[in-house]
């Protein structure tokens, strides 16, 4: 598949497209935690790194098949998510965000000091298993799963917690379990994305998974429009491709990226698709067209 595509696309852009897919999976996980459940998380990169290192080490040392490694990495990250989700019983709002930020930094420092992860030198020699097809099959799978989840009993409970936790508890929702559940599922996505990332770059460095990466993921979903899947997808796509598009400006690239973030927030404070319901938009545009054709002349 990749060899076939390489005839048409420059391998560098192929890599960017794969990275986009990987970020999409991770961002959708964060979307479930922050966008749907309303739990602020500044530590999503930690789950990404747990998944990445987990999958890579299993592949190197135990020689497990790739998909099994991805699954195991995802499960490890989900375990970490449960571990972080429990403190969220006591903390709320910004305090939860700060605690997850602390967790993210601790994980990074631990990976930097462990022998098995290669320490600060990083982990090299991971086989290249990720290809565009696998990534995008998983992206579609994630989108469908999150979409179905959001419109299930579980998802409605999560939205209720986001809107008003006390009211939700009064309605009989055990908010603790739902919050931990959201963290587990969201981190699972991040873990799978991490596994893909590890097997794409073939090299992992703890410095890549600092809080900066966490904020990047948060920016993806907020810029697109917090709480909507299409928003998360749009935000991720724009912000992942923006540094490539801005490449013409060479060293001013990151400066423009920063300015772009400020400008986008100022002009669309609720995100690009904030408050826009795509389904309703499409449906209403169809309906108005129907009305145009069925309304009798002069009526």
């Amino acid at each position, binding site marked *: 598949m990749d060899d076939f595509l390489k005839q048409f696309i420059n391998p560098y852009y192929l890599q960017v497209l794969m990275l986009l897919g990987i970020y999409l999976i991770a961002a959708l996980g964060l979307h479930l935690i922050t966008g749907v459940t309303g739990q*602020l998380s500044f530590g999503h990169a930690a789950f990404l790194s747990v998944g990445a290192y987990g999958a890579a080490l299993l592949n190197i040392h135990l020689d497990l098949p790739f998909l099994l490694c991805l699954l195991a990495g995802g499960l490890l990250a989900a375990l970490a998510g449960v571990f972080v989700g429990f*403190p969220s019983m*006591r*903390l*709320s709002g*910004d*305090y939860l*965000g*700060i*605690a997850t*930020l*602390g*967790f993210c*930094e*601790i994980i990074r*420092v*631990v990976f*930097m*000091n462990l022998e098995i992860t290669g320490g600060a030198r990083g982990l090299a020699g991971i086989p290249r298993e990720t290809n565009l097809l696998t990534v995008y099959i998983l992206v579609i799978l994630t989108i469908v799963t999150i979409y179905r989840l959001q419109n299930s009993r579980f998802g409605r409970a999560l939205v209720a917690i986001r809107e008003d936790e*006390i*009211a939700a508890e009064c309605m009989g929702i055990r908010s603790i379990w739902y919050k931990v559940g959201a963290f587990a599922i969201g981190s699972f996505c991040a873990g799978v994305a991490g596994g893909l990332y590890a097997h794409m770059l073939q090299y992992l460095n703890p410095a890549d998974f600092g*809080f*900066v990466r966490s*904020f990047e993921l*948060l*920016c993806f979903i*907020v*810029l697109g429009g*917090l709480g909507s899947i299409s928003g998360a997808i749009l935000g991720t796509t724009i912000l992942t491709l923006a540094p490539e598009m801005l490449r013409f400006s060479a*060293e*001013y690239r*990151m*400066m423009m*990226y*920063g*300015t*772009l*973030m*400020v400008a986008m*927030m*100022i002009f669309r*404070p*609720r995100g690009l698709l*904030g408050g826009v319901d795509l389904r309703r938009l499409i449906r209403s545009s169809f309906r108005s067209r129907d009305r145009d054709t069925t309304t009798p002349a002069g009526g």
Partner: protein
Amino acid sequence: MDLQTLLQQMINGITLGSTYALIALGYTMVYGIIKLINFAHGDVYMLGAFVGLAVVLMGANIWLAIFVAMLACLCVAVTIERVAYRPLRSSIRLAPLISSIGVSIFLQTLMTLLKGPQPVGFPQVVTNTIYTVGLVKISTVQIIILVVAAVLMIGLQLVIKRTKMGKAMRATSEDLRTASLMGINVNAVISFTFALGAVMAAAGGVLVGMYFNSVFPLMGVMAGLKAFCAAVVGGIGSVPGAVLGGLFLGVAEVLGVAAGLGSYRDAIAFGLLILVLLFRPSGLLGQPEQRKV
């Protein structure tokens, strides 16, 4: 660890901690008033260090350098607030946060472009003699840091408790809308708060640059995060809390390194942060959050 080493490390820890406290004050005051985690604050601190360095290189003494850095950072912080945060004041909570991250990336890249990513050394502006007081040794630089930090913190406390503007700040942090109904110019108060925070951070930047003899564009990232931890540990929104939290984290970090946890240095602050949050969710001196139905 014998008593002498312990005391010595305490002095080093308090020196480091008071620089954290200087930065933490900016975080805590801004959060207290507009509930914004101002991620660009660490970069204002970095700018302060660079301005101070530039002034020192022109041949001025350290006091002038600190003063000029304060003025420069004051202007920068007020401009940032005006451009990037004020238009977003009534939008969702995460919007100004993302905007502050954007500003932070902008400032870091700007300074990297101007000065290069490598750390720049700080010329020796004061003759560094080491005094022995009882069991411990203390250097001139450490004394300067402690004195400047103490003077600034006392000054800040006086501004907040004794002046009309300070009263307005306290009222605004209590309830922004009611304060504006009472005839307080809320926008001016917020600008003033940003200015005060930036002044503290600028002094911190110059002092740290002098203490560690290095200034670089990314120096605000880790220092800013740790100072932010300090603000949260002390109870975010509380000014004495920020000082206490800063000193606490500084001492803990230095003692941790002395105890052989050097490679986990950056994790100490965050570990303590999580521990404190688990047992006292609103920090050491913070008011417990009321949950209203």
